[in-house]
């Protein structure tokens, strides 16, 4: 199972990175969202994986999963929503003001730097 989680995080990161490197704002936003997924799951996974051990105390149960990364990630999810929303508005504002959604406005030769 660890392999599945690790590889899934890897795939999310790779796709996120690739999309962040695109030239238009919308794919960049999606890329950032994908990276957020990857980071959130990664942080969550630092508490190690456990099945059927939710950190809700109940009688007779002694083993619980690590609650700390969960609390951390919970706020991270909400904050990353806030960040996505800001970036979306930025992109939208830039598009409406400049009438193009290219992220590198004013650079004539976007290919020149490869």
């Amino acid at each position, binding site marked *: 199972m660890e392999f599945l989680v690790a590889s899934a995080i890897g795939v999310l990161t790779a796709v996120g990175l690739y999309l962040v490197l695109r030239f238009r704002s919308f794919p960049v936003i999606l890329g950032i969202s994908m990276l957020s997924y990857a980071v959130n799951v990664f942080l969550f996974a630092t508490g190690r994986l456990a099945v059927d051990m939710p950190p809700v105390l109940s009688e007779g149960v002694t083993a619980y999963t690590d609650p700390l990364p969960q609390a951390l990630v919970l706020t991270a999810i909400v904050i990353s929503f806030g960040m996505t929303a800001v970036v979306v508005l930025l992109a939208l504002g830039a*598009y409406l003001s400049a009438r193009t959604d290219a992220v590198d406005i004013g650079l004539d030769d976007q290919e020149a730097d490869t």
Partner: protein
Amino acid sequence: MESIGTFLPLIAMMPFVGALFPGLMIQAGRNVCAMTAAVPTILAIIMLTICAPAVLDGEVLQFSLPWLPSLGLNVNFFLDGLGLLFAGLILGIGILIILYARFYLSRQDPMGQFYTYLLLFQGAMVGIVLSDNILLLLIFWELTSLSSFLLIGYWKHLPEGRQGARMALTVTGMGGLAMIAGMLILGNIVGSYDLTVILENKDAIQASPLYLPALLLILVGCFAKSAQFPFHFWLPHAMAAPTPVSAYLHSATMVKAGLFLMARMWPVLAGTPEWFYIVATTGLITMVLGAVIALFKDDLKALLAFSTVSHLGLITMLLGFGTPLAAVAAVFHIINHATFKAALFMTAGIVDHEAHTRDIKRLGGLRHLMPITFLIAMLAALSMAGIPLLNGFLSKEMMLEEAAHTVWAGSPWLVPALATLGALFSVAYSFRYIVHVFLGDVRQDYPSKPHDPDFGMWAAPGFLVLLVVLIGVLPAVAEPLVRTTAGAVVGGELPYFSLKIWHGLTPALFMSAIAVAGGALVLSIHSVLAPRWDAAPRPEAKQIFDAIARTATVFSRWLTDMLHNGSLSRFAAIFAVAVIAAGLFAWTGGEAGPPVREPLEIAAVPAIAWALLVLCSLGMLVFHRNRLLVLILMGVVGLIVSLAFIYFSAPDLALTQISVEVVTIILLLLALNFLPKVSPKESSPGRRLRDGVVAGAGGLAVAGLTYAILLGDFAQESISAFHLENSYSGGGGTNVVNVILVDFRGYDTFGEIIVLGIAALVIYALSQSVLGGAGGRWLASGELDSKKAGDRHPLMMVIASRVMMPIALMAGVYIFLRGHNEPGGGFIAGLVVAIALVMQYMASGFAWAVARQRVPYHTTIALGVMAACFTGVGAWFAGRPFLTSDFGYVTIPPLEKFELATAMAFDIGVFLCVIGAVMLALDSLSSMARRAGETVNQLPMDIDPARRSVANATDKMAVAAGKEA
């Protein structure tokens, strides 16, 4: 003497506290302003005087207060002879400068600022000489660089002032950086950053292989500060400052800081051949070079500036000799130089002030016009030349005596000869200061008719010259101070010496005689030498400095532009590669724990979910130009992430993720309403390959790291057990994640809801500014119109969303209430309620929903933050720290016993803040739609009239087509 020791921090603090006032008191007039500057200085002097007898008796006063003991940084002060001398000079000359500046500064100069800067500088200097912790000393050291920058650049309107200040800051600041490195090495060798401890570890330091690097780094700092060759060039340029600043910085304080530190470190650093050859040679070169240049400067202050460089070189050389008697001479000359040089700078300022020029070529004959100034300047200059019965003579004799028997690389005559040459030029420029400025005939072409200034202006230099004569005639008065100070420098017993005028016919006396005679001779042929000197080619330090600075600027600009030319994708790629490289470096350099955990069995359902996630992610790559499709794929990914959270025992996360997912997708859909629906194909195959490689490398790296973490164990014991144990007993809740959020880490959560609120306000502000600008006009023009659905607000959806609204709200309240003990809580409840509201926007239209909105979302955010804040403050009334929680159990008869916790009130704050933030973000987007011309629909079912005719037409055509068929 504990009680006296407590004065030390007060002495250091006094100028800093005092610095607050002159800027305010200037409103009450210039005299009051000067007096407010004088009061803290006088108080500090009084406290120092109280401490003085004990120090002169050989005691060392100490004060210590731990600041950051884990870093070895403590507020430790100590006062020994060396500290006493320097603190006395800094404060004593400081008070004279305050007096002098009151009369020197004109009405146009902002005097309050001047005294504030001066006191800041004074405090930093006092801090240096009293510090008993080298880290604390470094802080004060940097403060002197900064405050001297303000002082030198005081006349901001003069370009020379700004350039001089910048140069001084660059040179002394870079020296300070080197010094930090050197001091840290020293502290590491000894294992303590306390100066008194370091000073006792001479053997350990000198035996260390790091002795030489530490020595070099510390000396670079000292030489830069004390304007030693090759860092001497900043000092003359700092002369653009007002004369009181020059008098203060360059006689008694700033430039002496380097000497102070060399003297302070003398017991542990001196006595090695490295010390001798570096320090003594640098001092010797500086002394001779400075003296020669000074003779050919026509600007009075430039002449004094280079003479200062020369005398600093002299003292450095004496410290470099490394013998106790040379240290005595160095200490004595520090006192003497401070007195006569401060007086000379002040007389130069008087001449400038009265004659409106400092150009020696335009001066002469002033002795008739300003007799008092002449007397003061003459005595001070003669002392600088080393004429008997003045204090400069005594220390110069001692210097020549020490030089006379110093052997440099096997040569017994090199040092004495060069020292005599330096002394000779010193005599020449000193005489020039008298002869070319004051003697000669009265001229008729002064820019302003000079006369003696008021008493207030000549009082300070007059007092200093009294000291010059007093010490010169009765050297014994200075002896206790010199003895205590030199004892502190040497850090042990001093050999026999006595300060007196007549030592007999020593070699030093002959050298002195040669210097005086030769100096007079050189001055007599000055008019012949000067044109040749001016014609001689030589490197101009300022040009070299400027060239270096320019090169550095060009290089850093090139580097910045290369890394960050404004292209986001380029910057992101560089950033990604740099992070991957850093991670790789850490991975190969560090040591990872062994895989000790057994992997969990792979079950069928998770494997299918994994496959779906990978498939959708890769699908996003393939179809990323089709924006709507890719958004759907991302929704699938988000859903699977939520499922993964449930599967791996994180119900709270799953609830949060799924509700955030809904809100995010809606937000992106709304944005996509305006943005283009497809991305054009722009990047070349090469570029795509490069991006693919970067992305693949990043993905592999993260996957590998995660895998290693998941199979490894914690390096340190986790603190999670604490939270599990105390969640119920301490926080009163069984849902540990929620208790952590609202109780254990309540402060973090408090910060986070504020961040979220700020993000929402930013979004609102952004949308408003876009709507107010070109973007808003474009929207309103209707050019952007995208295809519209035939029925804007489908009947089924409108009705369903309105019916569901109360149910959804109830679900939100339920999730909120159970949050403390079961999965749920403020964050999730806020998101659920927000979704219920957003559904109304989606189904019935933005304008419809906004028309029914009663409470502005800004207010909701503010209420949320305030609720959380007041809950935290409530703990104060129970006498406990901010955000300490409490809980209890209440029974209201028909209900079962239930719990009330203050954390719940805090969670209400979270709840409100989340609703407000999410809604404000969506509302901001909807305001764009309203600008684009959305109208309020009157009925639940609302068919776009524009589309109706089109639809009818299509229908008719279809019917017609059917008939034909």
